[in-house]
């Protein structure tokens, strides 16, 4: 295969710099020793990271986001694993339609979902509650949980299950001792990807969150609307660090290209 020419490499260098620059600048500004937005030109300081502790709204929002992400991804898997097994193993009428329905939250703009959930949960008397946030997040992370579980279930060797059945395993034992362990890497990766999606969602959550149930992106967004100061950059730097950690784990565990490739396709 032919090499890239010098022009191509210059283009590539500029491209990568532009892609990384906004993320890098947030992380750098977070370490400024000044009281205003600036790049840390004379020394690094952790004062803005310490300042987060004095702003309980951010700390509280972080715990809300963490709990919401963990819980909604787990609940989504409770629904997604059986659905993925059905779609992977059976050919039945309405199978394609069901798969399309389950992946549809990827296609519907999150602003529309936010409005629909706001209307729905307000009518149901659950407006602004944590329960409403959980249910809404289960829907938006479901496609990610389903897709990775589906990939694992499709690639599974069915003869192992048949062997277990011939040895007398049935129903729940079969699932818990044979099927689940075999699809577990896909399930865990599905959980991680779902968690990241939930943890990062702003557009839908901004409609549903009330004071007390504000997630971290919502709190950051509302804060930026008023003013941009180094505090929000240090919070962002923490968020970036958390996501990067999850990303590296996901890459090691499952392969990032596999997780990302086919984003939006029908999962087969």
């Amino acid at each position, binding site marked *: 295969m032919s090499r890239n020419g010098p022009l191509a490499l210059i283009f590539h260098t500029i491209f990568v710099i532009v892609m990384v620059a906004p993320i890098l600048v*947030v992380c750098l500004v977070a370490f400024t020793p000044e009281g205003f937005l600036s790049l840390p030109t004379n020394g690094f300081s952790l004062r803005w990271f310490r300042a987060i502790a004095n702003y309980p709204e951010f700390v509280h929002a972080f715990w809300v986001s963490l709990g919401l992400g963990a819980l909604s991804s787990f609940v989504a898997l409770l629904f997604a694993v059986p659905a993925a097994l059905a779609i992977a193993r*059976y050919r039945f009428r309405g199978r394609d339609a069901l798969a399309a329905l389950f992946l549809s939250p990827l296609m519907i703009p999150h602003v529309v979902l936010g409005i629909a959930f706001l209307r729905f949960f307000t009518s149901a008397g659950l407006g602004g509650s944590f329960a409403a946030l959980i249910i809404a997040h289960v829907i938006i992370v*479901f496609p990610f949980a389903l897709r990775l579980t589906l990939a694992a279930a499709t690639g599974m060797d069915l003869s192992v299950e048949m062997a277990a059945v011939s040895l007398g395993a049935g129903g729940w034992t079969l699932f818990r001792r044979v099927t689940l362990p075999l699809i577990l890497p896909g399930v865990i990766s599905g959980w991680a990807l779902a968690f990241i999606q939930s943890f990062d969602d702003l557009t839908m959550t901004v409609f549903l969150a009330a004071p007390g149930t504000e997630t971290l992106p919502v709190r950051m967004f509302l804060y930026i609307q008023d003013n941009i100061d180094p505090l929000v*950059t240090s919070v962002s730097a923490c968020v970036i660090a958390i996501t990067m950690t999850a990303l590296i784990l996901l890459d090691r565990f499952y392969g990032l290209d596999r997780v990302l490739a086919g984003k939006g396709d029908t999962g087969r």
Partner: protein
Amino acid sequence: MSAAAEERNARAPWALTAPALMLFVGVLLIPLAMTVMLSFHDWGQYKGIEPVFILKNWHEIATDPYYAEMFWRTFRIAVLTTLLTAVLGAPEAYILNRMSGRWKSFFLLVILGPLLISVVARTLGWALLFGGNNGLVNKLLMSAGLIRFPIPFMFTETGMVIALAHVMMPFMVLSVWAALQRLNPQIENAAMSLGAGPVTIIRRIIMPQIMPGVLSGAIIVFSLSASAFATPAIIGGRRLKVAATLAYDEFLNTLNWPLGAAVATLLLVALVLIVVGSNALIERRYAEVFR
């Protein structure tokens, strides 16, 4: 297989998908239907929402030039963002694909990774880079002699398109990348052996083959940009409204929910039509690639 087992086999997939199906009908389809219905309700400053069937909101959107301008701006920003990602993302995917193993996976991670990093954090980065008239981007461009006066990026459509293109770029690179994986490198060598120069190879061999990838990437980028919220809200500020930020305003500031629901419904319907329509066009045009 016995008749009983066969019947169990026919019921099993439905039993397994039933919980998820009920969840989706109950908490997705019903709320969406309620939103469409809401757009036909009446609203007044003092009386609130009145559950009657009127076309007031739709009439207002259709006749008030404010909404035409806002939807036109949304469309324009989404188209420009899509073009920018295609023009820069497709060559980058091609360059990436020609790199050797270790560099390839490293830069793929660098370019695709931001996809999972909070949109608020990424847009904040652009707000810092743009930052008024003496932001970093302007300083850099002026010291390079490319411009003589600072370009206003904050609170302008230019800034919104640049920041959105950055947010959406991974989708385009990913999509073209996927198309490049299906490409047989021997064809390129064959063209070279027949005397084709690099320009001809790119124009006649590479371009036609990665076009489906560029187009399907363009559909994803377009639909996500047209409904984007965080980036237009932070870069565009309170005055430059797009569909998503306007709907947000109607719901959480003006509290005119029926009007906001109408804006959201129109956005959803327009996007579904555009996406389904262009998907069908692409699949017909490039039927052989998708087989």
